[in-house]
């Protein structure tokens, strides 16, 4: 109800500063304002008031509401905006970016599985994971370049190294990670080919393990930095998730890459992939649940519209995939494959869901205005009812 306090507070300030305000009385209120074209947005105070106390802002019906938790998170949304227009801009990114988030997770997790399988003598798992990582990182790089406004200038990313820019850090991480992953993957592909290329093949075989280990050393960074890429923005739903999103993303990466391992390796060799996938899925589901509670208002975007459907699908697929992996993954190849596919699909839904939730939260001004207004009012109240007094004094 703090937003209600905001309105009253605003009214007080006005009255203090303007002795004539009393003659206008209630006309000064936002209900009257909203009647004029465009004083408030679609989520304006007026709309909310017209809809009745506790009602949702007008024009936003049809949202699905999920349980008690969300009820509590959504305050009576009364706020002012400029014709309902966004305050912050949504990132000009399209499907290539969530696709990259998904593929980057597969690559990172698979490099870890590939290195482990290589060291522990599981050739089929090593083959599948290394080739998977190579494919995933290739798709990732293509997606990243394709999403640039000027793709031909992608190398400009390598002009500088900026720790303040997760994209810069990520570029250097991928630059360091890529060669190792590709060499390890190429070595596995070379083994499958009917012909040998003499010295080149020998070199690949020798280089495969060190290259795979080098990639594995950087793989956790590849899988986790993408969370910071999203959270280090002014996009409300992404920034608000900055405590938990890295854990959600590495969990999703483990689930997806473990699922891929179960898909490509025989049951006898896929044991670690199963465990990795189950642990990742469990972590993802648990931390995602916590994240929805710590995010505040913007968590709403994870439950509504397209991102809401994606997140629901993600949870169902991830849980079912993990359960399938635990029950059938060790018994039947078909069961393992189906579980693996579900885990992969669940991870993809997580990435697209989180991405879309952020885009939605940027496009609706309420997710920017309401939390900031509450923060500002709290600070002003703490400073000792600053504004009203100062305006009165200066009169």
């Amino acid at each position: 109800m703090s937003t209600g306090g905001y309105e009253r507070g605003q009214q007080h300030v006005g009255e203090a500063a303007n002795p004539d305000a009393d003659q206008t009385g209630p006309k000064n209120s936002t209900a009257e304002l909203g009647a004029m074209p465009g004083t408030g947005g679609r989520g304006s105070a007026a709309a909310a008031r017209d809809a009745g106390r506790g009602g949702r802002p007008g024009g936003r019906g049809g949202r699905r509401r999920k349980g008690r938790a969300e009820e509590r998170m959504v305050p009576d949304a009364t706020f002012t905006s400029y014709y309902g227009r966004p305050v912050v801009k949504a990132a000009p990114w399209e499907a290539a970016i969530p696709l990259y988030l998904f593929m980057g997770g597969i690559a990172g997790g698979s490099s870890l599985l590939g290195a482990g399988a290589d060291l522990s003598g599981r050739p089929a798992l090593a083959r599948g994971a290394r080739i998977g990582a190579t494919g995933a990182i290739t798709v990732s790089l293509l997606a990243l370049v394709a999403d640039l406004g000027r793709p031909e200038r992608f190398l400009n990313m390598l002009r500088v190294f900026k720790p303040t820019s997760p994209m810069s850090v990520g570029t250097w991480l991928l630059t360091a990670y890529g060669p190792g992953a590709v060499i390890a993957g190429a070595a596995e592909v070379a083994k499958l080919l009917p012909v040998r290329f003499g010295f080149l093949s020998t070199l690949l075989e020798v280089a495969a393990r060190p290259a795979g280990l080098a990639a594995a050393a950087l793989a956790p960074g590849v899988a986790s930095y993408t969370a910071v890429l999203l959270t280090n923005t002014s996009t409300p739903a992404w920034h608000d998730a900055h405590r938990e999103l890295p854990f959600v993303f590495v969990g999703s990466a483990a689930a997806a890459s473990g699922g891929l391992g179960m898909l490509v390796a025989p049951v006898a060799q896929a044991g670690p992939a199963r465990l990795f996938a189950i642990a990742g899925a469990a972590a993802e589901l648990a931390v995602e649940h916590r994240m929805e509670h710590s995010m505040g208002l913007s968590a709403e975007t994870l439950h509504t519209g397209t991102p809401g459907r994606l997140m629901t699908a993600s949870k169902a697929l991830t849980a079912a995939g993990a359960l399938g992996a635990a029950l059938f993954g060790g018994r039947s190849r078909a069961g393992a494959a189906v579980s693996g596919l579900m885990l992969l699909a669940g991870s993809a839904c997580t990435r697209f869901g989180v991405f879309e939730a952020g885009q939605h939260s940027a496009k609706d001004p309420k997710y920017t205005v309401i939390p900031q207004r509450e923060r500002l009012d709290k600070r002003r109240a703490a400073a000792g009812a600053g504004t009203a007094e100062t305006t009165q004094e200066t009169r």
Partner: protein
Amino acid sequence: MSLDAKPERGSGRGADDGHLGLHQAFTSAGPAGPAARAGWPEAPPRKGFFTDTSICIGCKACEVACKEWNGVPQDGIYELLGSSYDNTGALGANTWRHVEFIEQRKPLGAQDTGITIGVPESILAPDVLPDKPIVDLGMPAFDLPSASPEAGERTDFRWLMASNVCKHCTNAGCLDVCPTGALFRTEFGTVVVQDDICNGCGYCVAGCPFGVIDRRIGEKSKHKDVPPVKNAGVAQKCTLCYDRLLDDQTPACAKACPTQSIQFGDVDELRERAAKRVADLQAAGVMNAQLYAEDPENGVGGAGAFFLLLDEPEVYGFPPDPIVTTADLPRMWRQAGLAAAGLLVAAAAAFLGGRRS
């Protein structure tokens, strides 16, 4: 308005903030200002705008002058947005100054002009008044509309107008997150995109807490007569007329502003002017007159371009309490590091546990 020939862009673009590393985003700029922090030796005084919206008349000369000088392409073809006289919409790649119009049923303030409704008495001095009754010739009245008996009761109304612009933050989100170093801090303490470096990754668009910068969309239709859009696919925003500053000229918008609503100058001096102006307005009883984005202690370390508003910031579409996203970045990196370590441990455990099965 004298917009002289465009001078050559200065060669001084050396100071990529990128070379300064993590610390620069989280420290306040200090008395020397952001330019000194970015590595400019003997930087000139920081330049900025003080946009006093209380005297903005909504003429949009700033929008036009900005477009003309900077060669900013059109941002829509005669669209009517249904938002008072604002048919521009928002700041973006093709709008570097944006005049906003807000209609409110609120009194303007407690100002008393001393003029009574109808014909001012000072004009109707006794010796001027004719003895005979005035004959109605059917001429248009010179009275105020409110003087007619049909006018009804006067209602409260005020029109807020404001010219929005890039804030040129001390701690600039766009600059912090730029991965190419295309965005840089000039010697004037402003934040500018180098058009030939930017590869259009779009990160700055999401990084800006004010929704200012955007990626320019190119011309899709390849019609013969349509010239290709300059800098398509590249992030674009106000440069505070960097080219004009290098030539000791006032930025185009401030030069064109007929009421000095847009004031250009040294940020230190503008801050003093702003403080005095807001005190004057509050003393005159103007509701809610407040400075916005000016406080060096705020979430962006104080803006180089700040505003005097007559209502709360969100009424103008400004974020009420913006904080640069990189303020939380150390914590984010720590969380990511912990998550990465967790993934490594999980992978190791999976193989050690899997060995048993």
